[in-house]
C-alpha cells in the first residue's frame, strides 16, 4: 500500500513535503549566495563564542597564570591576624601526604622599601628614589621546580642558592616598565642589572646587587623584590622557619577540595588558612569575569540580531521573489504548513551549517591556537574560554533565532491570496 493514512499523518506529510521542497531548493540555489549566507552564520556563531570567550579569557588567563605560577591548586596562608604560617615545617611534612600531591613551594614574605640612589647626595628635604615592595623569600631550586620562575627573567639571571647578596626585582617596581607617577605611587628610575639597591625591612637594611628583572604577569613576582629565603628571614628578623605562603600543586585530575579537606582533617587549619585556588582568587577578579561575561553576551547579542535580520531578509526576498511559486504550490493543494516548513528547513540548514563550521573553527583551530599563542594583554596572557556546553547553548540560541527569523517572512508571504500570487497581482 503506497498511500498512508492522510489525516493522522498530516503533520508528518507537511514535514516530508517541506523537506522535499527545501532540499530541491537548496540543491538548485546559487552556490555563492548559499556560501555567503553560511559565511554570515559562521561569523555570527564565532562572534557569539569568541567575544565573550576572549573577554572571560582575559581574566581566565590571569587566573590560570596565578594558579600555575603563584598559588598552585591549594594555598596555605597566615590567618588574617597573623603574619606567618605557624608550624610551617610540620605542615610541610603533612602536605607531602596529601592525595594527588605533586609539588609545593614555601615562600617567606614581608614588606620592604627599596632605594636605588641611596649613595647619591641629595638636597635637604628631597626624597630618595625608592619604592615600597613586597619581599619574597624563595628557595631558588624549589621555586624553579614549582613555578619555573627563571623563564620570567627578562634581563640578567636567576638566583642561585649562594646568591646571598643578590635580588631579583619585579618589573612593576621599575619606571621603565611601569611609567606611572601618581601621588603615593612611585617606581624606580634608571635601574640596570648589576646595580646595587638598598632593601629596608623593619629596622634592618642591606645592599643587594640586582641579578635579574622579572616579568611574569603574576603580581606575586612582578611587584616583589625576590631574595633567598634565608635573606628574607634575616631582613624580617625571623629566626624560625615559619613562612608567609605555601603553594601546593596537585597531580592532574586530582580534586583540590579533597586535598584541602585532607589538610584540614590533619590539623593544618589550626595553624593557617587553607584554601583552594578558586577560593583564594580575589573577589574582584570573579566580579570582573562575570562582568566581562555579561558584556560579551551583550555584544554577541548584537551579532545575533544582525544574523536574524540577515536570515529574515534572505528568506523574505526568497519568498517575495517566489511569490508566484508559492501561489502555485498552494493552488495545486500543497498545505501552507508544508511550504512554511520548507523555508524553516532552509533557515535551519544555513544556521546548522554555520554552527558546524563555527564549531570546527573554534575547537580545532582558534581555541588550540590561542592556547599555544595567548593574546598578549598587558596584565595577562589571554586565552579563549570556550566549552562544549556553552558553545552548544549558543548554538541552540542561534538556531532558534534563525528559525524564527526564517518563519516570520515566509508566513507573511504564504498568507497572501493564492490566486493573486499565481497571477502576480
Amino acid at each position, binding site marked *: 500500500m*503506497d*498511500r498512508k493514512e492522510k489525516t493522522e499523518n498530516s503533520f508528518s506529510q507537511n514535514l516530508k513535503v517541506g523537506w522535499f521542497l527545501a532540499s530541491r531548493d537548496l540543491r538548485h540555489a546559487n552556490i555563492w549566495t548559499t556560501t555567503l549566507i553560511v559565511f554570515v552564520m559562521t561569523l555570527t556563531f564565532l562572534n557569539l563564542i569568541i567575544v565573550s570567550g576572549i573577554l572571560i579569557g582575559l581574566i581566565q588567563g590571569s587566573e590560570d597564570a596565578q594558579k600555575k605560577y603563584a598559588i598552585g591548586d591549594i594555598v596555605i596562608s597566615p590567618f588574617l591576624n597573623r603574619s606567618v604560617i605557624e608550624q610551617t615545617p610540620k605542615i610541610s611534612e603533612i602536605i607531602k601526604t596529601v592525595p594527588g600531591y605533586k609539588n609545593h613551594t614555601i615562600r617567606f614574605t614581608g614588606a620592604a622599601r627599596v632605594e636605588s640612589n641611596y649613595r647619591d647626595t641629595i638636597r635637604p628635604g628631597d626624597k630618595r628614589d625608592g619604592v615600597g615592595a613586597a619581599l619574597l623569600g624563595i628557595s631558588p631550586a624549589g621555586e624553579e621546580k614549582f613555578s619555573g620562575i627563571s623563564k620570567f627573567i627578562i634581563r640578567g639571571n636567576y638566583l642561585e642558592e649562594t646568591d646571598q647578596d643578590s635580588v631579583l626585582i619585579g618589573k612593576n617596581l621599575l619606571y621603565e616598565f611601569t611609567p606611572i607617577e601618581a601621588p603615593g605611587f612611585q617606581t624606580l628610575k634608571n635601574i640596570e642589572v648589576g646595580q646595587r639597591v638598598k632593601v629596608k625591612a623593619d629596622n634592618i637594611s642591606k645592599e643587594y646587587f640586582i641579578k635579574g628583572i622579572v616579568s611574569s604577569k603574576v603580581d606575586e613576582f612582578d611587584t616583589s623584590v625576590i631574595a633567598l629565603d634565608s635573606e628574607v628571614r634575616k631582613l624580617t628578623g625571623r629566626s624560625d622557619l615559619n613562612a608567609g605562603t605555601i603553594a601546593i600543586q596537585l597531580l592532574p585530575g586530582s580534586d583540590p577540595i579533597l586535598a584541602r579537606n585532607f589538610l584540614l582533617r590533619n590539623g593544618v587549619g589550626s595553624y593557617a588558612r587553607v584554601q583552594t585556588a578558586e577560593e583564594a582568587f580575589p573577589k574582584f577578579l570573579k566580579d570582573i569575569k562575570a562582568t566581562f561575561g555579561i558584556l560579551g553576551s551583550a555584544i554577541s547579542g548584537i551579532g545575533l540580531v544582525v544574523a536574524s535580520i540577515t536570515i529574515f531578509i534572505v528568506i523574505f526576498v526568497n519568498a517575495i521573489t517566489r511569490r508566484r511559486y508559492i501561489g502555485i504550490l498552494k493552488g495545486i493543494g500543497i*498545505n501552507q504548513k508544508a511550504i512554511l516548513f520548507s523555508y524553516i528547513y532552509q533557515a535551519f540548514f544555513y544556521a546548522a551549517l554555520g554552527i558546524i563550521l563555527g564549531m570546527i573553527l573554534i575547537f580545532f583551530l582558534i581555541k588550540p591556537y590561542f592556547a599555544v599563542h595567548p593574546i598578549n594583554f598587558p596584565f595577562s596572557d589571554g586565552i579563549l574560554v570556550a566549552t562544549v556546553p556553552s558553545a552548544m547553548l549558543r548554538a541552540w540560541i542561534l538556531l532558534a533565532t534563525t528559525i524564527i527569523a526564517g518563519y516570520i517572512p515566509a508566513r507573511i508571504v504564504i498568507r497572501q491570496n493564492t*490566486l493573486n500570487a499565481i497571477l502576480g497581482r
Partner: protein
Amino acid sequence: MLEIRNLTKKFKSGDETIVAVNDLSFSVPAGQFLTITGKSGSGKSTLLYQLGLLDMPTAGEVIINGQNLVSLPEEERTKIRLNDLGYIFQDYAILPSLTALENTMLPLLMQGYNFKGAERQAKKALAKVGLTDRENNLPGELSGGQQQRVSIARAIAHDPKIIFADEPTANLDTETSGQVMQAFLELNKEGQTIIMVTHEAQYANLSDRTILLVDGHIVSDTMNK
C-alpha cells in the same frame, strides 16, 4: 459531478464595480469535456478560478458531488484542490527547482504517498503524456510543449475528479497545441472530467460541450457531439 448556482464574482476597480461572472448556473456531469470560450475580458478565466476553488465567489454556490464548497475554510479547500482537482495553467506553472518527475510527484507526496509510491505513480503519469525520457530534466531544459505536458502529468497523477485547464495551448505552437489537445482527448476518453478555458474555436470544437461567455453572461451553451 459539478454544479454552480447563481455564481457571481465582482471586482472593485477604483470606484467602479466590475461584474466578471454574472449570476451563472450550470452543471457538468462526470466524464464531460467542457470548454469555456469567449473574448478576452469575458470572464472565462475568472469563472474557472471560482470553479477550481482558487478564488472565492462574491455570491452563489460551487457544488461538487453534492457538497457546496464555497463556504469551506481555506484549509479544507486546499485539501479538495489536492485530492479531487487538477490544474493546468496557461504558462505551465511548474516549479523551476524540481525535475519533471519531482514536479509530478509533489501532489502525491502531499497526499500521503511514500517516496517510492509517489515516484511510481508520477512515472506512470509522465509515460501517459509521453515524457518518460525527460523525467529527470529541470523545466528550464524542456520545451514549452514538454513543460505543458509535465503540467498535465502533475494534474492527472493523483487521479483527480476534475481537471481545470486555463488556456493550456495559448503559449504553444500549432503542432504542440495539437499534441496537448490530443492528450486531453485521450484522458477524457478514459472518463476524465475536464473543464478547459480557451479562446481558440478549433480546440473548443473538439470538446463535448462549449459555453460561450460575453461580459460574464452565458450567451450559448452548445453540445459539440
